């Protein structure tokens, strides 16, 4: 496979600069492609430390068509020079030396300014409505069917003389949906204690287990029945996704719960659990923010808390005015975002019709780097 030799041509220009928005120790090298880029095997970047006369060291290489290389693990404050070696087959050609560049660390990530502005405005809204709540302004929240059904499910299960099964999913205590699930668990536990029903909570994560133990105990205390609390019913199964599913399936068919709650983070095991729960005739209330699993919960369970409804649950169930106020702030933020969409859509449409690239400024402002 001998092709006629092609002479490697160096890249026409090389530029080096401190990598922006980083913790220091990094320089970005940029170049224009070699005129023979289509046959280039790779671009190898060489680094010279301290002075243009220093010994060149290979810093790394990239594939053809690439114009950028980030050189890491450098010393902040030191001066570096670069050149790019263009490889064609076993031949190479070196570019001229780049300008000197000095790596340093930055204190603000300019690529994330839009995120900061959004966070500040949204945070301001949240604080504003928290203050409103402190001044005692009543807040309305629409009915959420899945949450209305919680008490009913516990009641019906008790009537049938069956225990209640609460499945907190396979999330960790650092997952927000798991914390939302614990808030729902507290309500379920309280109701169960009122009805003197048994509640079983099998766990995937040991920390969630300890938190769940505390939550159930608290729920029983609030109902005035700490005597009924049995810590042995809140236990750990296994940290294996499908092992957990196998174990919970076993609990379902043997304990025959009358009500099954599937709340928290779920992955593929969601349908295994929900179908088994359906097969034993339990009332099932599910909720998750894992969008890929929602279709299966919708299909196989009686009530489903979709995404954000789950986060609203703790406020909804506790009717705590402070929590409710954050939901009001969420709603105002939604209107704000819709307004932003409309402005963006208008500007983008104008840009597309007039061909005026400047009109993209609004959309571009939201880019994250």
């Amino acid at each position, binding site marked *: 496979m001998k092709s006629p030799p092609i002479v490697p041509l160096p890249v026409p220009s090389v530029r080096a600069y401190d990598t922006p928005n980083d913790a220091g120790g990094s320089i970005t090298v940029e170049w224009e492609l070699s005129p023979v880029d289509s046959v280039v*095997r*790779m671009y190898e970047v060489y680094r010279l430390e301290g002075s243009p006369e220093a010994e060149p060291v290979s810093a790394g*290489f*990239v*594939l*053809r*068509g690439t114009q950028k290389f980030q050189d890491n693990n450098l010393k902040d404050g030191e001066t570096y020079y670069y050149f790019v070696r263009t490889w064609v087959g076993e031949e190479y050609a070196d570019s001229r030396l780049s300008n000197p560049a000095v790596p340093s660390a930055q204190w603000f990530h300019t690529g994330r300014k839009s995120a900061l502005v959004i966070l500040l405005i949204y945070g301001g809204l949240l604080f504003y409505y928290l203050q409103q709540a402190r001044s005692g302004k009543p807040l309305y929240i629409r009915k959420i069917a899945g949450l209305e059904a919680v008490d009913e499910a516990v009641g019906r299960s008790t009537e049938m003389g069956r225990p209640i099964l609460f499945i907190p999913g396979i999330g960790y205590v650092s997952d927000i949906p798991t914390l939302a699930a614990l808030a729902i668990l507290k309500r379920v536990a309280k109701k169960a204690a009122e009805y003197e029903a048994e509640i079983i909570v099998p766990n995937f994560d040991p920390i969630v287990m300890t938190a769940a133990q505390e939550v159930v105990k608290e729920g029983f205390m609030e109902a005035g029945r700490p005597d009924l609390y049995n810590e042995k019913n809140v236990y750990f199964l296994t940290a294996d996704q499908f092992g957990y599913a196998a174990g919970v399936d076993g609990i379902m068919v043997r304990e025959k719960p009358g009500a099954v709650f599937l709340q928290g983070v779920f992955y593929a095991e969601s349908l295994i659990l929900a179908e088994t729960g359906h*097969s034993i005739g339990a009332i099932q209330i599910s909720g998750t923010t894992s969008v890929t699993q929602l279709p299966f919960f919708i299909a196989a369970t009686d009530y489903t808390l979709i995404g954000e409804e789950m986060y609203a649950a703790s406020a909804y169930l506790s009717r705590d005015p402070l929590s409710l106020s954050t939901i009001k702030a969420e709603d105002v933020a939604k209107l704000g975002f819709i307004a932003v969409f409309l402005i963006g859509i208008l500007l983008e449409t104008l840009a597309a019709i007039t061909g005026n690239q400047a009109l993209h400024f609004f959309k571009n402002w939201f880019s994250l780097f």
Partner: protein
Amino acid sequence: MNLWDRLATIDRRIIYLLVALGVIIPIVAKLSFRVTPLREVRQAYEEIEKLPPGSVVLFSIDYDAASMPELQPMLVAMLDHCFRKNLKVLMMGHWPLGLPLGQIALEQVAQKYHKKYGVDYAFLGFRPGVAAVMINLGKDLRQVFNTDYRGTPVDSLPVLRNVHNYNDIAILVGLEAGATGDAWVQFAQARYNQKIILGATAVVAPDLYPYLQAGQIVGLIGGLRGAADYEQLVQVPGPAFLGMPAQTIIHILVVVLIILGNLGYFARRQGGRR
């Protein structure tokens, strides 16, 4: 209970049975839908086909049990191809939990062709450091693997005696469930001009097409469909090829079940109104 009621309330066990039969029958009966193999799979096949006997092919197992349904059939079919063509096979991997899967396939197919360990094939195992391993393989294989997985020095294995770096490896086959494939292209192809064929899960494969278009890999096998194509090309029908009809049958079964359920539902609702 009339017919409509039955249609609306088919027992789930009957559905399970139908699903099981829908998968078992096409596999056992070796039903097949002959489809034209995708071009990128044929390309991979031909690259291996044209290697002279004795050439060395290095397999890299870069997946684990979760991607087994898609990637294991590819591995088996490609190994079959290599051993049948009397090529020498080396195997390594970057995902420690996937290595036993690779090893099982290697032993199985080697046995089928009565190949001898150490002479016709060797299992190198795993070394930490993805990029470092790839780069050092280009310098000296012995720097990375001085022994095989059992601790036998590579110099005492005839299959490895003349293998020192990528120059001695005709084709590298990477089976990918993650981003390791990109690293192979970057380090082995760009740096050392190694010929690479990648097999990937249906999720990963779209990310690898640009390499194929740029000529940086010489073949791409994507998902169960790709595996089925390769099995068809080497004429060893395996789970992928035999599974293709099962896929279609289950889809049809589900649609028919939905239709039946709705027919029963509407008929009952009508009955209820009377």
